């Protein structure tokens, strides 16, 4: 069974590769290369997989999942300049692809028990663009 919990955070970022010239960055990333940064209201959907406990009828404690998302992601990402304040984005470009992978890496150690195993991370950069990551086995 799959269970999805949603969380939101707002953050700023710059998408540019320091190994490329200004014009190459503009060509590759468009407006997202603006060196002053810009921001988004990100929406995160985290999906866990598991079987309901026969006694509680629950796969996992949703309150605990909410606290894990808050502690491991929202408190770290919310109202931050990702490139400057949230590693690894001091050296990894904070595209939604890399953000999905980073959030997976942050959550996976906490969601790998017999009840509730991390299945997927979906991050919406805007309502019209989202990225799914299902781990390195996918």
């Amino acid at each position, binding site marked *: 069974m799959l269970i999805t919990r949603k969380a939101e955070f707002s953050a700023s970022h710059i998408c540019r*590769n320091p*190994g490329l010239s200004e014009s190459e960055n503009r060509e*590759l990333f*468009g407006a997202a290369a603006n060196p002053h940064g810009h921001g988004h209201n990100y929406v995160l959907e985290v999906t866990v997989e598991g079987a309901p406990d026969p006694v509680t009828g629950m796969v996992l404690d949703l309150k605990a999942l909410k606290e894990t998302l808050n502690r491991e992601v929202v408190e770290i990402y919310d109202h931050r300049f990702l490139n400057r304040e949230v590693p690894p984005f001091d050296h990894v*470009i904070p595209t939604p*692809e890399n953000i999905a992978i980073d959030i997976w890496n942050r959550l996976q150690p906490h969601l790998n028990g017999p009840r509730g195993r991390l299945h997927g991370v979906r991050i919406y950069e805007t*309502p*019209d*663009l989202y*990225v799914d990551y299902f781990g390195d086995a996918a």
Partner: protein
Amino acid sequence: MIGLVEVTRKYRFSASHRLHAPQLGPAENRELYGKCNNPFGHGHNYEIAVTVRGPVEALSGRAVDPELLDGLVRRQVLEPFEHRNLNEEVAAFRTAVPTSENLGREVLRRLKQNWLAVFPAGGVRLERVAIAETSRNAFEVSAHEIE
């Protein structure tokens, strides 16, 4: 080792259509398609979601250049479909009924047939297309279902 990511981008267009199967009689068509069989046609604000799958490139940190994807979808789908009568103005729907099922397949077919002109072989792949005629219905077609 980093796995593959899926990137999904949503687009919108508005178009009119009429659901009518020429193999069936007038009464059967009315029975089957209801209001959608109105001979004068009717329209929708369509929303499509295009999902691609690929590795994250080190240079860009991305799996797909959204501008390239937007350009392909604009040329192959949005421009030919936007504010059109699908039955009259899109060749595929002269023979196929423009249901959401067939529309989803046509969108996917157009993107798949023109994919390699934009994205090199061995890179990011077209995975699936979802289409919603209204917010109450959703249809999804996977790339492997279409030639």
